[in-house]
């Protein structure tokens, strides 16, 4: 069973890899967005799903990655690769600095504080000449949708392999223990502060790399689009819908919801977002533990699965 899952996953990656060579450019563009969302959901999974710190501010890492890459390329004429590294380094440094105080907060306090991060950093960036102030930055134009697609796919695979490692490693075990009960974890010898900051930094790393790819791909960035708060809600919903704290859940969630939202948007533009909202509410009510859990237990439990789910959410 387990082996089968990984064979299927490998086949899926192979199938995804040939998309640019077989499907239309529109599909490739959709694919890039979907894959980058999967990376963001996977990044959130590390801090929210494994460590239990529901960050509403990972968009700040995405934004810093976007700007780090753009500033490096536009103002310093560095290569894209170096730009990505710089964007990621800035985001990781920010995660460590801000994580030390912010990760002392728990629950709602943590969520609310992280929510403010994007706004604050966007305000700072809007006043920096080097970052193009409110006007944003225009990156060199290249035609390379296939390259961006394969890069996004590679990043998604890397993020997922990292989460797979977490699920099996001592470090990941420590994160899960922190999620389950932090004070008990600490007295059992788990360096909770260091581990939480490392998880936050890892989430920042992947989010920032996604941001860097997005910047060069879109060739134009400004504070509003780089530090888009709605990104937070979307990545969280995708991760939770798919299964927070699982290895493949966030990827599946990102794929399914990106697909649903794309289909809805093309058929019924006006009510698309409303409908999308309803789909999500239904999904969260009926499969609160994510589609991975539902797929595993639904065949055995049948309709009772949904009833249990509704009961567990205490409606």
């Amino acid at each position: 069973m387990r082996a089968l899952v990984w064979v299927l996953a490998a086949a899926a990656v192979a199938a995804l890899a040939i998309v640019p060579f077989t499907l239309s450019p529109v599909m490739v563009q959709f694919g890039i967005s979907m894959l980058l969302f999967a990376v963001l959901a996977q990044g959130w999974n590390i801090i929210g799903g494994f460590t239990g710190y529901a960050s509403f501010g990972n968009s700040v890492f995405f934004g810093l990655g976007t700007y780090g890459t753009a500033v490096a390329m536009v103002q310093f004429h560095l290569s894209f690769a170096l730009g990505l590294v710089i964007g990621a380094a800035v985001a990781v440094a920010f995660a460590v600095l801000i994580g030390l105080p912010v990760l002392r907060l728990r629950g709602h306090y943590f969520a609310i504080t992280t929510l403010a991060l994007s706004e604050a950093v966007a305000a700072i960036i809007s006043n920096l000449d080097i970052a193009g102030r409110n006007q944003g930055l225009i990156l060199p134009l290249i035609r390379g949708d296939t390259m961006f697609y394969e890069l996004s796919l590679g990043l998604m695979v890397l993020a997922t392999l990292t989460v797979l490692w977490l699920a099996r490693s001592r470090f990941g075990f420590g994160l899960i223990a922190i999620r389950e009960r932090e004070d008990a974890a600490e007295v059992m010898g788990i360096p909770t502060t260091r581990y939480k900051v490392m998880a936050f930094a890892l989430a920042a790393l992947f989010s920032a790399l996604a941001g860097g790819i997005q910047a060069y791909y879109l060739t134009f960035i400004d504070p509003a689009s780089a530090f888009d708060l709605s990104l937070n809600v979307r990545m969280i919903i995708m991760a939770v819908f798919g299964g927070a704290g699982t290895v493949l859940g966030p990827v599946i969630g990102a794929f399914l919801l990106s697909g649903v939202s794309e289909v809805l948007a093309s058929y019924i533009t006006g009510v698309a977002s409303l409908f999308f909202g309803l789909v999500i509410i239904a999904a969260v009510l009926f499969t609160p533990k994510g589609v991975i859990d539902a797929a595993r237990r639904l065949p055995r439990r049948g309709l009772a699965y949904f009833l249990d789910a509704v009961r567990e959410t205490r409606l």
Partner: protein
Amino acid sequence: MSGRDAGERTVLFEARHVTRRFGGLVAVSDVSYRHNQGEILGLIGPNGAGKTTLINLISGTLEPTGGELLFEGRPLKGMAPYRRAHLGIGRTFQLMKPFPGLSVLDNVTAGALFGRQPELAMAKARDLAAHWLEFVGLGEKASQPADALGGPDRKRLELAKALALQPRLLLLDEVMAGLNAVEIDEVVALIQRIRDGGTTILVIEHVVKAIRKLSDRLLVLQYGQLIAEGTAESVLEDPAVIEAYLGRRRG
């Protein structure tokens, strides 16, 4: 009376004038004692006397507001709880704190992975955890989710989690509360076996019969102050202790 073999045995842990205030309340007040290597020390006192607070101070969950804690002569001041665990200070929680979403086995594996012993591979840590589950009598429930356990089994799980980090000083906070007479006898035997394995133990307990049987020496706290110290026989006959503790003992 005191100092009988104080000089001959090695002191593992020492509290020197330890105080902990919560605002105006002095939960632990100027407490000094020595805990010898291999000794079972009983800690008794009425509700709210400061027993749990003392364990919190030793394990690092709380810092003292005054005084000094020494482990093997080394001051613990400012040392994070996880580092104290690495030194070999293990504890249970009076209000039990299992990892609710993990299996019973994984609860204990955490201790085996991160405790005093050098880094273990996951499979080794699980083996060790299984060993401690057997030891406390939870072997058959290893794969159950921890939050499915009943009260007495949760107490055993607390014990197994603390044991898995291979403590040198084990702090037990009312691990017998809520157990029946047979279960209490089992846990008393367990604690004796742990000590026979070389572990130094501090036991907080309200069950007098058990504490009398287990303890090499007893400490009595009242309103945060150490009001008596000595063998179980002498302490339990001390009029001040009878007045303070036994007279107001719950149940």
